[in-house]
């Protein structure tokens, strides 16, 4: 499926507020501090959108919540080098949870017709679970769109309500165009355009606005006890083709993984859909049989 490029919105809201959440990155080989790749892509997306639109229409603010550690400034300055005037840095205790201060910062109403928050799908260090934006969206009551690779337009749909038209990445290079009612949080995917080069001059000049996050954010006592280890890529499932025929083996290697085993459910009730998903998870061994049974019983009640 290929999508025709979409013309930019004919009418833009008078003012758009973009927020980008930035985390600290680490290079995979040397563990040196750097900008996190996905967050840098989110920032690139925001900067591109700001540059494309009417000048002065879009305000961009960047946020980082975290403790002041040795490498923090190096990593944040790498973002500043992309041409940001400043980053707002909310200080936190080392074991603090970034959710509360970010929620506090984004909750404050802004004087804009459209509000959009961008961040990478997951962080490069720490838990890296990718749960933060989901939790944040839930707490704010905003929409959450994962896997975004482009913002095509932001347009007003009725007075005081705007929507964003974004491209979402699907497996094997497929794209889906969706419209999301704002405010929303967009999770930016690795397939989004690569971030621009970080330059020394702007990185040195840019300001790190140190903010006090107010009340001490709740710490994460469970997380403190977790052992952390370097992540390794998930092993791929081997597809063993036993054929003496080279052509067959080549075809098997070159062919895309078949998706024939899937099932398309259309116009089914929520219960049927949930049952199908649970059955699949059970078959894959993701949830235990007992949990499935419990869930079914709960459902039936």
């Amino acid at each position, binding site marked *: 499926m290929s999508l025709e490029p979409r013309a930019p919105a004919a009418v833009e809201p008078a003012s758009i507020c973009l927020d980008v959440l930035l985390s600290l990155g680490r*290079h995979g*080989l*040397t563990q*040196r501090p750097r900008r996190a790749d996905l967050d840098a892509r989110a920032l690139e997306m925001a900067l591109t959108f700001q540059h494309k639109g009417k000048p002065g229409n879009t305000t961009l603010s960047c946020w980082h919540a975290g403790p002041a550690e040795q490498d923090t400034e190096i990593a944040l300055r790498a973002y500043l080098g992309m041409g940001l005037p400043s980053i707002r840095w909310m200080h936190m205790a080392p074991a603090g949870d970034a959710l509360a201060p970010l929620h506090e910062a984004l909750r404050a109403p802004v004087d804009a017709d459209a509000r959009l928050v961008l961040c990478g799908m997951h962080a490069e260090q720490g838990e890296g679970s990718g749960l933060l934006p989901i939790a944040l969206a839930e707490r704010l009551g905003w929409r959450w769109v994962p896997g975004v690779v482009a913002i095509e337009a932001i347009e007003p749909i009725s007075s005081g309500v705007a929507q964003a038209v974004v491209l979402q990445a699907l497996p094997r290079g497929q794209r889906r165009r969706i419209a999301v009612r704002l405010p929303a949080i967009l999770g930016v995917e690795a397939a989004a355009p690569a971030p621009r*080069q970080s330059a*020394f001059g702007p990185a040195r000049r840019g300001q790190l606005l140190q903010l006090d996050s107010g009340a001490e954010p709740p710490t994460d006592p469970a997380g403190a006890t977790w052992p952390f280890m370097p992540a390794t890529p998930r092993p791929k499932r081997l597809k063993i083709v036993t054929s003496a025929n080279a052509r067959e083996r080549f075809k098997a290697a070159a062919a895309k993984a078949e998706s024939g085993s899937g099932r398309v459910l259309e116009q089914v009730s929520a219960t049927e859909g949930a049952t199908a998903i649970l059955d699949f998870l059970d078959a894959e061994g993701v949830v235990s049989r007992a949990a499935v049974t419990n869930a079914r019983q709960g459902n039936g009640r």
Partner: protein
Amino acid sequence: MSATLFYGSLTGLVLAALLLALVGAARRFLLWRRGRPSPVAWLGGLAAMPRRYLVDLHHVVARDKAFAHTHVATAGGFVAAAGLLLLVTLAPLPAGGEMVLTGLMLVMSLVMLGGARRVARRRRRPPSRLSRGPWQRLPRSLTVFAASVAGLSLIMLMVTWLPAAWLTGVLGGTLALVLLAGLALGLGEMFLGMTWGGPMKHAFAGALHLAWHRRAERFSTRQSDRDGVSPRSTGLKPLDLDDPDAPLGVETSEDFTWNQRLGFDACVQCGRCEAVCPAFAAGQPLNPKKLIQDMVLGMTGGSDAGFHGSPYPGKPLGEHRGQPGGPMVVTSGGALVDADTLWSCTTCRACVEECPMMIEHVDAIVDMRRHLTLEHGATPGKGAAVLDNLIATDNPGGFAPDSRMHWAADLNLPLMRELGQVDVLLWLGDGAFDMRNQRTLRALVKILRASQVDFAVLGDEERDSGDVARRLGDEATFQRLARDNVATLSRYGFQTIVTCDPHSFHVLGNEYAAFGGHYCVRHHSTFLDELLQQGRLKIAPRPRSRVTYHDPCYLGRYNGEFDAPRRVLAALGIELTEMARSGFRSRCCGGGGGAPVTDIPGERRIPDMRMADVAEVEADVVAVGCPQCTAMLEGVVDRQAEVRDIAELVAEALVLEESVSEASSTATGARRRPRQTGHPGRLVEEASQ
């Protein structure tokens, strides 16, 4: 015309021209001074200027013998004739003395006339490297000036003998008027044009450029003549990164130092740079001559439509314009130079080497690149990725730093970390990650072991020298790498650093001094030459097919090493077939200055042209001494010649004594090896135990 009127108008003309020229000179000087400060020895420079002109400048001009003679006659005749003209007309002199000087003036103006005619002959069908426009008019102006001065001198000599009525007669009066008119024209070109921006500007600005050159150490002195060294100054100047107000490179023309601006004005548009520039020949959008003229437009403003030489390939004239205080490089909207012009440069220094006016093109290009990279983050092509890799992994390829020694897993190389003190530190360079260069490195290690050199490597502690980062304009990353490498090297004791990478050689030897690193660095060809001369290397010379040698820019032009590689090859029994462009005129392989990374498209590829040079002399083997050159030349499709590093050729011809070969093959491991030994006997003993 009465004699009084004649003398009066003559004096008036000369005086007016002189005064107007002085006003122009002052204005031009103030224009240059709008650049950034650069301390110079004001009087010392002026005192050294005649020597720099007569020795260093003439040394470059004299590569074209015929034109050198022309230039000596024209310029020498002009300086002498003009000086005498000022003396005779403006200084109160006794009559006898005036006669002698006038006679001399006649002779000198005739010499100049001869020169001017030869200039005119060259201008009849000028080669494409020469500029036209006002430059075509110059030989006529020279002729008019020289002929008028000669005629006037003749009249001044004759009035003493001829009756006074002669000058007042119709014939004499007309002649005097014509000659005075000719003098006025000539003075307009030669005096006013010099300081108000005519072609003769090159003489005025050129002389001051020589006096207040930014790299005064480039020029020979009596001392350097006595020592028999030809001084070079090729290391880039560091940026001050500690001062947040200092500009990061050059954005506007005013960000150049004032004497760089003076240097741009010195250009005589002879086009020697254009003739040797590999990027220009490849059809990439760079012409060093045009670039310098664009730099002049940056000072004075105006469109480049007034340029009368070859444009940047693929970029018509008249589309770019300069503005004092405005941006030099097109980032958005109109400006003077497109960024791809700057990124086409391979920093091979061929233009600087050829420039008779000693202009530093490469400095200016890197200054503007610095602004693009450090302020705009606009390094093109794979440049940004390479810089990110250097920042994160200390090597341009982004390889894991602890895999730097994987190529030598079986060699058991002695590590600096374990020995602490050796004679020779072998600097591997980033070629350690490149499978082709690993063959060269293995050959070099084999030679070092065979000649029982006490050496060690830094291993994983080595970082990229910072060469590519610096030439891509990322001075911050370069300085970080330089400081880290200097800190590592300061922990160990060694006498010499030997490397097979001329880029590392240049940076370690010439550019680390600003960061506290002073080392004795040898390119491996120099070191092998020394080993051969000391008799520590036994080789069996054998006849070979036709071999030619490609001089790496960073070894030859940057560091003046042309002879050692040739001596080593001669010792191998190789009779070199030299290419037309070899030695200081060697054509770049296209691999320097980050050019393969930025990869600006052109009509041809630079390495293809170099391999065509090799094919022209029908060589079967081209000997090289640089990992970049090896990679570039080996990448040429359908090449007829084999590309071999000097180390590989030496290693092939090596005569291994039985015990030594055993010593080198049975792992003279770092731990088994006694510390601080260079004694061959003990080494062999240990190994044979």
